[in-house]
């Protein structure tokens, strides 16, 4: 009960839950307990309305129209760029490129930066806890250009072994691409330190912020990262939209990733000149409604406050961690000192997939599998984990429902 009181002080969860229409439903006749937030977050009504409103009142293609709707749509789209810029404190709108998500953002850098700056026998550094989307784009580049991928190891708590970092850096290292928060372990990586070390060696750093942008405030100028990628749908916005931040100087020097409309200044069959930043990297009609929805999501998150969000989610993690620790045969995977609200675990002799199906029948949505981080699973010598990930709209009742369901599941499967 004590924790309940602490919880009330941070903010009113019930009030916040009312902003999310999807949360108020029964699944298999049980109240939905949505704990799969690291995979995708739910959308507040204000985001859903903004998309609906765009299609109902403003829909049109952007940038080249001279008519009313096109100008209005362009304005909304570009306003969101400013919202994103301010949210991560970029220097200019030129540094904000809209993509389809984190994966697209990383691929853009791998291909474009790779084409310009990476040559045979060069090296790219990633870490052992990367999502496949921060491994495979580099492997493609490695294959194309005969480049080597080097991997910073982790320890048994699921933390980076930073001491090994200096050993990995050589004069051939061209880029370090590192995940800010691990989606399968919850570990918050010391990216400030990584960036500092990298910059001492004149190596640029890409930060995969897919799992951090929704939990903690990010200031790209303070961090001094060179690239930062994230997805809209992990921060309460729509799917199919994401952001790539890049320092203007780098983006300016990089060649276009895709050719097409909107990314050009002038096209003739003899010669084409490219548009200025950020449009150089936005070929074709983008996800206009999605971008506008992302803007609404960021405004919503800001209105609650990332600090409050962080506190509440930390509390949920702490309580849930303590409660699952009491369950016999259960082992938490990912016990880093610094974590976001991700709780990955395995249970002796019970496969995560079976746990997932049983929990579903208790109304509890968790994720089971390798979470697109197979190297992490290999490191811990496990095929998969069960993962509960908490959002600020989760309540203490959700934790209770989760724990009761988990105990019931284990009992049924033992």
């Amino acid at each position: 009960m004590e924790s309940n009181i602490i919880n009330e002080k941070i903010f009113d969860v019930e009030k916040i839950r009312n902003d999310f229409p999807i949360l108020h439903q029964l699944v298999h006749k049980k109240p939905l307990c949505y704990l799969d937030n690291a995979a995708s977050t739910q959308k507040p009504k204000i985001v859903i309305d903004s998309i609906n409103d765009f299609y109902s009142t403003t829909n049109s293609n952007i940038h080249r129209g001279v008519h009313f709707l096109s100008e209005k749509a362009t304005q909304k789209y570009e306003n969101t760029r400013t919202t994103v810029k301010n949210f991560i404190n970029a220097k200019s709108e030129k540094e904000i490129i809209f993509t389809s998500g984190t994966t697209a953002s990383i691929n853009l850098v791998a291909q474009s930066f790779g084409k310009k700056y990476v040559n045979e026998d060069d090296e790219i550094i990633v870490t052992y806890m990367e999502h496949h989307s921060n491994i495979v784009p580099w492997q493609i580049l490695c294959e194309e250009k005969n480049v080597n991928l080097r991997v910073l190891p982790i320890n048994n708590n699921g933390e980076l072994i930073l001491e090994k970092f200096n050993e990995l850096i050589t004069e051939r290292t061209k880029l370090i691409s590192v995940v800010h928060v691990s989606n399968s372990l919850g570990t918050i990586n010391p990216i400030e330190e990584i960036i500092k070390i990298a910059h001492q060696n004149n190596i640029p750093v890409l930060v995969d912020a897919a799992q951090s942008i929704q939990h903690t405030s990010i200031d790209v100028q303070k961090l001094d990262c060179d690239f930062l990628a994230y997805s809209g749908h992990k921060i309460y916005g729509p799917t199919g939209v994401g952001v790539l931040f890049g320092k203007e100087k780098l983006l300016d020097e990089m060649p276009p990733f895709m050719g097409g409309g909107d990314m050009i200044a002038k096209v003739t069959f003899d010669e084409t000149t490219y548009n200025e930043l950020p449009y150089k990297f936005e070929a074709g009609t983008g996800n206009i409604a999605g971008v506008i929805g992302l803007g609404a999501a960021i405004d919503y998150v800001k209105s609650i406050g990332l600090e409050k969000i962080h506190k509440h989610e930390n509390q949920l993690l702490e309580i849930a961690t303590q409660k699952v620790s009491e369950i016999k045969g259960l082992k938490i995977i990912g016990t880093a000192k610094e974590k976001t609200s991700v709780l990955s675990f395995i249970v002796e002799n019970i496969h995560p997939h079976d746990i997932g199906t049983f929990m579903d029948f208790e109304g509890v949505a968790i994720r089971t599998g390798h979470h697109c981080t197979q190297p992490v699973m290999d490191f811990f010598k496990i095929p998969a984990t069960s993962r509960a990930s908490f959002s600020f709209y989760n309540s203490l009742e959700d934790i209770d429902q989760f724990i009761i369901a988990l105990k019931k599941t284990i009992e049924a499967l033992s």
Partner: protein
Amino acid sequence: MDSELRELYQQVILDHNKSPKNYRIIEHPSHYCDGHNPLCGDTINIYLSIEEGIVKDISFQGSGCAISKASASIMSSIVKGKTIEEVKSIFEKFKDMVTGKLDVDLESMGKLAVLAGVKEFPSRVKCASLAWHTLINAIDKKQDAVSTE
């Protein structure tokens, strides 16, 4: 427990999961194949001893959920002594049963009928089918490891 869930996780399945039949290695198999399900990380190794077109012995090892392990266990006990043609024909019926394609006569499915509940769980069909796909590849001596993707 919910009846749909009970239908999927019948006691027989839980028992096979806990003590699977033919869960061992055949030292010199005439046929062998690895299978894996990238969705959940399940892996299975199937060992066969086929003589004159008849499955004389079969065994498996691997890691997977209760559904995949029970399916492999039941499969191993069913195909032993069958001809290759019979095995393939059972596999076709099994596929139809778990994907809910046809009104399969459950009576005719014998022990395999306990896996009929899978058809209500599209995400688990691959779990139930992995052992079978791997078995067929082993019989056909396909070199590539099986993936359910």
